[in-house]
């Protein structure tokens, strides 16, 4: 399984933490598609705490964290 942790506004209408079957989600981009999150809604993507891109290859047991952009002042 892959654990997906959503932060801040990405949690709106979704769970804080979502478990997904690793067989169905080879990359982080597949997870975004599944959760109906467009890439522009994600500023930072971490896999097991390491900063990665959307094409990061995922393995069973990975923890994916998604942070939305913050741009105001």
């Amino acid at each position: 399984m892959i654990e997906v942790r959503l932060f801040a506004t990405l949690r709106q209408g979704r769970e804080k933490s979502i478990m997904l079957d690793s067989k169905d989600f080879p990359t982080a981009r597949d997870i975004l598609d599944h959760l109906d999150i467009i890439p522009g809604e994600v500023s930072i993507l971490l896999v097991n705490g390491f900063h990665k891109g959307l094409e990061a290859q995922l393995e069973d047991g990975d923890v994916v964290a998604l942070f939305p952009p913050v741009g105001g002042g």
Partner: protein
Amino acid sequence: MERRYERNIPALSDQECRLLRSKRVAVIGCGGIGGYLIELLARIGVGYIRAVDGDVFEESNFNRQLLSEQPLMGRPKAKAAEARVQRINPRIEVEPVAAYLDSNNAKEIVSGCDLVLDGLDNIRARRILAAACAEVGVPYIHGAISGWVAQVGISMPGDGLIDVLYPEGVSFRDRSVLSFAPSLCASVQAALAVKMLIGRPVETGTLYYFDLLNQEFETIKLDLGKKE
């Protein structure tokens, strides 16, 4: 040691306080984040503050901007910053720049400073600021807020922090800002600024992310080589 700074001691040494008095910082934006930045830097005793903002106060500022006051409606934010600091300590030199940062003036605005602080409210200006700081060779401390959330990170010249935080096509779902977000953001930026100005160690390539709705505070190590 002036009495006004005696409560800085011993958290800061006498020598560190004197060092702060000799330092020059530019605060880009005098709105939500910038207003608090200027307040905090003036209170702790930074000797020179360049306060940059081309905007004037309007009613929608009042929910969060420290410098906004009813009698200042329609007045320049940069001038309000200068007046506020002069009321706190007239010995602090404030240079108000009542202009928006753009690609024509950015280099001049960040020149001659030891450190630049980001109090901007849009990505376009942040990209211009990052480019100017890279060209001039001055570090800046990024800060941004949205709703209940604040984020802060140190950017060394040319490290690409802004490109990583705001990839092409980035979009925002939430344009609200609650009153505590800019004060928290500015406090973290100001603490990092003081550490840099007095030569204490800081972490670069790191983003501090604060979600005040869920009380979740994350320290994220960024791969600044990754610009996608």
